[in-house]
C-alpha cells in the first residue's frame, strides 16, 4: 500500500497522528474481517463435526452389524441385537402420513390467505398459524397423549384400539408442520406478479381456475420445496412422537399399529444406555441425520431455484 498523501498545510504532528490512526484502523479492519470469517467458518465446521462425531461414536455398531443394522427386524437392547428397520419404517411411515394430511391443508390455507381472505383477517390468521409453530414439541406430546390419543381410542376403537400408534404420530406431526409448509407456500405464492393473477381474474376466471392454471403451475417447484421442507421437520421431530407412537421395537408393516421412530427410540433409550447400546443409538442418530440431510438438501435446492427464477 502506498502512503496516503495529506494536504501540505497540515501541521507535522497531526500528520503523524493521522498516519498512526490509519494504521490502527487498518489493523482493526483486518481483525474484524478475520473474526467474522472465523465465526462463519464455524457454521461450516459444525455440520462436518456433527457427521464426523456421530460416525466415530457409532463406528463399532456399523463394524459389528454391517448391513444387518438396516435389515434386522427388532431392536432388542438386552440381547444386544440392534436392527434399525422398525425405527426407520416408523419414521418414514409416520412422516408420510403427516405429509399426506398436511400438504393439501397447507396449500388450502396459503391459497385462502393470499386469494380469499378479507384483508382485516389476513394478518391475525397468518399470525395464528405461525404461532402454532412456536408451541414447543413437548406440549404437542403431552396434548397428544392426554387428549388426542384418548379421543381417537374412544371414537375409532376398531382402527386405533390403543389410541396411540403410527397414525396418531402422523396426525400430530401434520398439525406441527402445517405452519411451516403454509408460510413457505404463502411466500412463494406472493412471488406471482399481481398483474398476472389480476389479468386472469379480469377475463372472468374463478379462484379455482386461477389457482389451478396460473398460481400452482408457476410456483410448482416452490410448493414442492415447501412440502419437502415439512417432511424434513417431520422426520426428525422427537418429543411429540415419543409420547404417541407406541414404542413397539419389533417391525410390523402396519399403518395404524404401534411402532417407533428413530428419534423416539433414541430419546427413550439413551438415558439408560451404555456401551454397545449407546454406540448403536449414536449410529442410529447418524442414519437419521443423513436421511434428513438428503431431504433438506432437496428442499433447499428446489426453493433456491424458485428464488432465482423470481428474485
Amino acid at each position, binding site marked *: 500500500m502506498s502512503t496516503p498523501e495529506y494536504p501540505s498545510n497540515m501541521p507535522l504532528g497531526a500528520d503523524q497522528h493521522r498516519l498512526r490512526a490509519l494504521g490502527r484502523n487498518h489493523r482493526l479492519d483486518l481483525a474484524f474481517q478475520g473474526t467474522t470469517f472465523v465465526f462463519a467458518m464455524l457454521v461450516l465446521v459444525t455440520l462436518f463435526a456433527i457427521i464426523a462425531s456421530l460416525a466415530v461414536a457409532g463406528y463399532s455398531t456399523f463394524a459389528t452389524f454391517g448391513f444387518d443394522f438396516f435389515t434386522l427386524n427388532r431392536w432388542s437392547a438386552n440381547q444386544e441385537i440392534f436392527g434399525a428397520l422398525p425405527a426407520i419404517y416408523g419414521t418414514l411411515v409416520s412422516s408420510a402420513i403427516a405429509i399426506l394430511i398436511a400438504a393439501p391443508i397447507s396449500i388450502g390455507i396459503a391459497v385462502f390467505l393470499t386469494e380469499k381472505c378479507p384483508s382485516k383477517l389476513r394478518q391475525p390468521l397468518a399470525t395464528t398459524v405461525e404461532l*402454532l409453530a412456536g408451541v414447543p414439541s413437548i406440549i404437542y406430546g403431552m396434548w397428544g397423549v392426554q387428549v388426542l390419543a384418548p379421543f381417537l381410542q374412544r371414537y375409532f376403537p376398531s382402527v386405533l384400539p390403543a389410541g396411540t400408534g403410527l397414525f396418531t404420530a402422523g396426525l400430530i406431526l401434520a398439525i406441527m408442520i402445517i405452519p411451516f409448509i403454509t408460510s413457505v407456500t404463502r411466500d412463494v405464492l406472493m412471488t406471482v406478479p399481481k398483474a398476472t393473477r389480476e389479468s386472469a381474474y379480469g377475463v372472468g376466471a374463478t379462484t379455482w381456475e386461477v389457482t389451478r392454471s396460473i398460481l400452482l403451475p408457476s410456483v410448482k417447484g416452490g410448493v414442492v420445496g415447501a412440502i419437502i421442507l415439512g417432511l424434513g421437520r417431520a422426520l426428525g421431530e422427537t418429543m411429540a412422537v415419543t409420547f404417541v407412537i407406541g414404542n413397539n421395537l419389533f417391525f410390523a408393516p402396519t399403518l395404524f399399529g404401534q411402532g417407533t421412530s428413530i428419534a423416539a427410540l433414541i430419546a427413550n433409550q439413551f438415558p439408560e444406555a451404555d456401551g454397545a447400546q449407546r454406540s448403536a443409538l449414536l449410529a442410529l442418530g447418524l442414519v437419521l441425520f443423513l436421511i434428513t440431510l438428503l431431504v433438506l438438501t432437496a428442499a433447499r435446492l428446489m426453493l433456491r431455484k424458485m428464488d432465482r427464477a423470481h428474485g
Partner: protein
Amino acid sequence: MASHAFEIRDIGLYRRRRWRNSVFVFACTGATLFGVVWLALIVAELLIQGLPGLSLSVFTERTMMSGGGLGNAIVGSLMMTAAGTVIGTVVGIAAGTWLAEYGRDGKLANVIRFISDILLSAPSIIVGLFIYAVMVQPMGHFSGWAGGVALAIILLPVVVRTTEDQLGLVPQSLREAASALGAHRWLIVTKVCYSGARAGIVTGVLLGCARISGETAPLIFTALNSNQWTTRMNDVMANLPMTLYQNMTINSFIPDLVQLAWTGGLLLTMAILALNIIARFVAR
C-alpha cells in the same frame, strides 16, 4: 337463434364452473379453520389443566416426588437459555456479518449459507447427540454448559439468517456515504450497518430464544435434569422441558407431578407465545 343456443350451453358451463369454485373456496376455508383450531384446542387444554395448579409455591419450591414446585427448573431453564442465546447470538451475528459484508456472492459464502439453512431445519435431537459426543463424553458428566451450547447451535442458524437478511436491506448508498467521510470498513459495519439492521436482528434473536426455550430433545443428552436447586453450570442442570417430560412419562403415576407438568406446560407455552408476539412488535 344460434347465439341463443350458445348462451344456454354457456349457462350450464357457468354453473358448473361456479359450483366447482364454491367447493374449492369452501375447502380452502375449511383448511384454514382446521389449521387454526389446534392452537385454540391446545391453549384451552393448557388453561383447563394447568391453571388449577398455579400458585406461588410453583415458583418458589423445587420439584420433589411429592410434588413441590418448578422453581429450580425455571432457574435452570433461564440460565441455559441465556447462555445459549448469548453464545448463539455472538457467533451468529459475526457469521451473518461475514456473509453479508465480506463473503457476498463468493462460492464459500454460498456454501456456508446453504449449510446454515440445512442446520436451521436439522433435527434438534441430533444436535443433542453431537454435543453429547464432543462435550459430555470427554468431560465425563452432563452439564448446564453442554445444554447451553446445544441450544446455542440450534439458535445459531436463525441468527445467521436474520443478520444476513437485515444487513442486506441496509442501502448500499449509506455504506458509500460513510466511506466517503473516511470511515473504515469495521466502523461502517458496526456503526452504520448494525444500527440500520438492529430491529430485524433483535426480532431474529427473540424468535430464536423462543424456539430454544421449549427445546427438550437436545437436553436429554446434555444437561439431563435434576430435582435440586442448581445454579452451577458445570453440573447436571434442572430445566423446565425435561421436568415436564419426566413428570409425564416415568413419574406419570403421581397425580401431583402430572398436575405440575400441566402447570409448567402452561407457563412455558405462554412465555414462548409472548416472546413470539413481542418479536413481531419489535419488527414493526
